[in-house]
């Protein structure tokens, strides 16, 4: 850019988050001494309307052509400040952020003086980079009005139906022969005790009869390429492969039921030790009858130990099978760390069903905490009114399976309330086990490049704010792929994913990030290292030169780092820009402000 840089610096106090440690007025005065800085000011909250208005007005008043905000993290706030620049007719890529909260005030709360010096260093570095920034254009791509939904459980069915009724074409694939997922195998649903088929049945029927939905059963995703708005998926089923072009993808592939290892509570050894899921099936078939006593044990394989991220360390470089083996191995030893959310209600539901059919059967539920959140407290009370016995065992002391003198199954536990060891001879022992990540889900995660969280489930784009988005544009998650959910929660997440996907498809186009790799063809020797290293398949060697398909590029910079000829540079992160930042740190030059 030929124009002389005219930089405005805005320093945020973030209430007292920054201002309570860093001397913000001092940093502001300092910023005014840095070359190219025309204007510097500070606000209580730069992200407030007042702060943003100040930026926009200063751009006009001082004819600024670069803006630096020294505040918090670009992860949450860069889009906001970029938008403010855009509104003041400044190219949003002529904006640079300096993080003086996470990198300064929050980590050095007890040393305000050094923290202030470090804040100055960071601001100086940001200004040095800002001076060399160039305007960028965000590529706009068309978004096809069609979606691929993977998995036809309640979440996938709901998502498909929602998008179809909004007029979008939906391809719905299901690995099993029938639609309905986990819910299809359930007997009754809590808290209404409605037949699961009353929910799954109409949903399935509506999906099958909808003119906008094309269903493929016994099918799976073989391959997928492309990018937001323009995915090309190869679906494979009994009738061979089928290629479809879709604008968005919703992953609703569900999860698995944890199967206890053979021998745990004599599971797989004694045929009257079953899981809660197996009890569901037996109740459906009427195979339980009127036994004297049924004992349920909660949290079998759940809430065990700490998270062990080491199991996932190898991701994403290891192959899928190896990753899966590691996850499963770690979990087999310790169980899964999380609470599976739905097991308490499931146990109560089945206890009620048994009691309603056979009031004489003594139903005992052994638990650590009873997590009947929401309005399910009423449901829990109903079970107690039916004389289901809930016995809290001391969390650290797990129940044990023994035998009565005449060889009958017996459960021993330490009753926390009575302070006594209790023994229950039992006709059936039912283990409440968690929902766990399925193999398919991990495979899909890898194929679609959705990260896997430390709990093994697919990771959302932001745990709090973007629960059904993923970090892959145009790909959304619904149902239990992102952790245990009950039927109604899965339905809600299916609707939510459909809403997010429909925004893209309804608009018909989307802008993507301009930070991508650029090849200098004069320097490129066509070695193909970039093609090999890129996790997103963006570079391709054509006519002996690397060509970057911008839309696929996520701006990670791996290719630029790998290129032996330095033919690849990153937009917005050019070597000259980064070196200027380093130089500003190491050689503060004429202006004051020391090294820290």
């Amino acid at each position, binding site marked *: 850019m030929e124009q002389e840089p005219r930089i405005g610096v805005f320093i945020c106090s973030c*209430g007292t988050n920054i201002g309570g440690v860093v001397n913000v007025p001092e940093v502001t005065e300092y910023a005014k001494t840095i070359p190219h800085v025309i204007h510097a000011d500070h606000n209580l909250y730069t992200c407030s*309307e007042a702060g943003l208005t100040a930026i926009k007005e200063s751009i006009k008043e001082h004819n600024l052509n670069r803006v630096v905000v020294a505040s918090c993290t670009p992860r949450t706030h860069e889009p906001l400040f970029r938008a403010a620049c855009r509104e003041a007719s400044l190219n949003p890529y002529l904006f640079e952020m300096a993080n003086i909260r996470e990198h300064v005030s929050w980590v050095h709360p007890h040393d305000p003086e050094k923290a202030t010096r470090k804040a100055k260093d960071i601001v100086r570095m940001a200004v040095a980079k800002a001076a060399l920034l160039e305007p960028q254009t965000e590529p706009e791509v068309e978004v096809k009005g069609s979606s691929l939904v993977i998995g036809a459980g309640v979440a996938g069915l709901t998502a498909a139906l929602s998008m179809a009724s*909004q*007029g979008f074409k939906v391809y719905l694939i299901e690995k099993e022969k029938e639609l309905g997922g986990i819910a299809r195998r359930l007997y009754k649903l809590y808290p209404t005790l409605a037949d699961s088929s009353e929910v799954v049945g109409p949903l399935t029927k509506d999906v099958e009869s909808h003119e906008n939905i094309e269903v493929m059963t016994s099918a799976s995703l073989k391959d997928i390429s492309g990018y937001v708005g323009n995915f090309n998926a190869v679906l494979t089923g009994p009738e061979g492969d089928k290629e479809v072009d879709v604008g968005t993808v919703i992953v609703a592939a569900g999860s698995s039921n944890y199967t206890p290892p053979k021998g745990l509570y004599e599971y797989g050894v004694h045929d009257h030790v079953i899981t809660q899921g197996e009890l569901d099936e037996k109740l459906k078939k009427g195979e339980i009858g009127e036994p004297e006593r049924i004992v349920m044990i909660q949290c079998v394989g759940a809430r065990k130990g*700490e998270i062990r991220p080491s199991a996932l360390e190898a991701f994403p470089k290891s192959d899928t099978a190896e990753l899966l083996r590691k996850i499963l191995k770690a979990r087999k030893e310790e169980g899964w760390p999380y609470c599976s959310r739905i097991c308490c209600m499931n146990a109560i539901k089945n206890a009620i069903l048994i009691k309603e059919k056979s009031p004489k059967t003594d139903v005992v539920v052994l638990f650590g905490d009873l997590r009947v959140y*929401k309005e399910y407290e009423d449901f829990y009370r109903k079970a107690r009114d039916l004389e289901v016995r809930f016995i809290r065992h001391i969390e650290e002391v797990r129940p044990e399976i023994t035998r009565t003198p005449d060889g009958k199954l017996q459960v021993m536990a330490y009753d926390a309330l009575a*302070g006594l060891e209790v023994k229950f001879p039992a006709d059936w022992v039912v283990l409440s086990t968690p929902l766990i990540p399925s193999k398919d889900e991990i495979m899909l995660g890898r194929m679609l490049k959705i990260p896997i969280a430390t709990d093994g489930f697919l990771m959302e784009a932001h745990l*709090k704010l973007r629960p059904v988005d993923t970090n892959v544009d145009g790909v959304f998650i619904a149902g239990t792929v992102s952790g245990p959910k009950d039927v109604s929660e899965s339905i809600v*997440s299916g609707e939510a*994913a459909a809403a997010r996907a429909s925004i893209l498809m309804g608009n018909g186009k989307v802008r993507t990030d301009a930070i991508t790799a650029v090849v200098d063809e004069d320097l490129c020797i066509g070695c193909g290292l970039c093609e090999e290293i890129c996790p997103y398949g963006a570079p391709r060697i054509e006519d002996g030169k690397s060509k970057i398909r911008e839309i696929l590029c996520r701006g990670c910079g791996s290719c630029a780092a790998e290129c032996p000829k330095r033919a690849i540079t990153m937009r917005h992160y050019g070597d000259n820009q980064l070196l200027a930042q380093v130089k500003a740190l190491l050689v503060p030059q004429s202006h004051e402000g020391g090294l820290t």
Partner: protein
Amino acid sequence: MEKAVMVIGGGVAGMQASLDLANRGFKVYLVERNPSIGGRMAQLDKTFPTMDCSMCILAPKMIECSHHPNVQLLTYSEIKEVKGSVGNFKVKVLKKPRYVDEKKCTGCGICSENCPTEAPNEFDESIGVRKAIYMLFPQAVPRVAVIDKESCVECGLCDKVCPAGAVNRGQQPEEVELDVGAIVVATGFDMFDPSGIPQYGYGRFKNVITAMELERLLCASGPTGGHLIRPSEGKIPRHLAFIQCVGSRDRRDWINHPYCSSICCKYAVKDAVLIKEHKTDSRVTIFYIDMRAFGRGFQEFVNRAKSEFGIEFIRSNPGEISEDPKTNNLAISFEDPITRTVQNISFDLVVLCPALVPSKGMPELAKTLGMELDNYGFVKSQDSVRKPLDTTVPGIFCCGYCLGPKTGDIPDSITQGSATAARVSEVLAEEGAS
């Protein structure tokens, strides 16, 4: 798509519904009773279990709402009348007078600086004070002052100092009539007043506070600048207790909130960890009935709270709190579950985690909208499994905590906000087709 949609309630659920609808091409009227959007999340210090600063992740969403060309904010406004049915609702909205011209006010704050009258600051749970002309909080959206006529002494100083000439003390209520195809209710919750359980001494003992008061005390932009101090004399508390299920899971007829409020266990553990992070030598004890740490990352978080931060968990529902009048310290009397004896432990500060209850205006709003409420006064779903976000009135949907503790937390509220946007799009697409 030219149909408009009304969203009632500008908390995080209502904002998400508004943004998703607006981005889908609908014109959205976002109606908020308070002078600013933001809702409960704006009052929180950090959010569990990631410890993100609540306002920091909320503010960009608030600004997006105010800048979105398809969203029209109607703050400090209430629903007066609703007629019609799905596809064609006619809604009368009452805009309460701010006594400040929204178009002229720049939010510079000079009026508040000069105003001589103080009133309790509701946003800070009345711990601190604000002026009679004020903004709800520094990041308020819209950035427009409001005069609280009850505390105003009509001195006219604000009028004199306002550089924009925005003060208009003669402003009258204004009624607007809007045509919308669908309505989303997202009116959130209120908190049970713990003075309803006199044994805990809330309102009598200065150092017994609520969890929301604690949030404001921990928050860097709160009344104490983020310094957690004892209300009695301003000293830093060293030994703190949390009491869970204050009014929740309680069937006593004068309380009658038999449900689990769903979020208290989780935020208490978060606050306990925050306190330990603020002052590593403090001792924090949580009294609970069941530790309901469901949801992604929470069990792991509770494990960390125990092993890494040394938070003490006692499974007991305390019977009574008594105060030492000299020190203002508090003794909690409870049955120790291990020794099965009644014990007393002294604390510097006790935090009560009250039940979340339907918001005050709920019965009236339900009447206006013609929708049914459930046994506890929350919005009733058409079908709690199949259609959890559909109210009993076609075309009126619901998200967030006004549905009751169906919503665990922020991600649940956001998921529901997005989901109602889908429901509205589906229903209006059908309406358009028919």
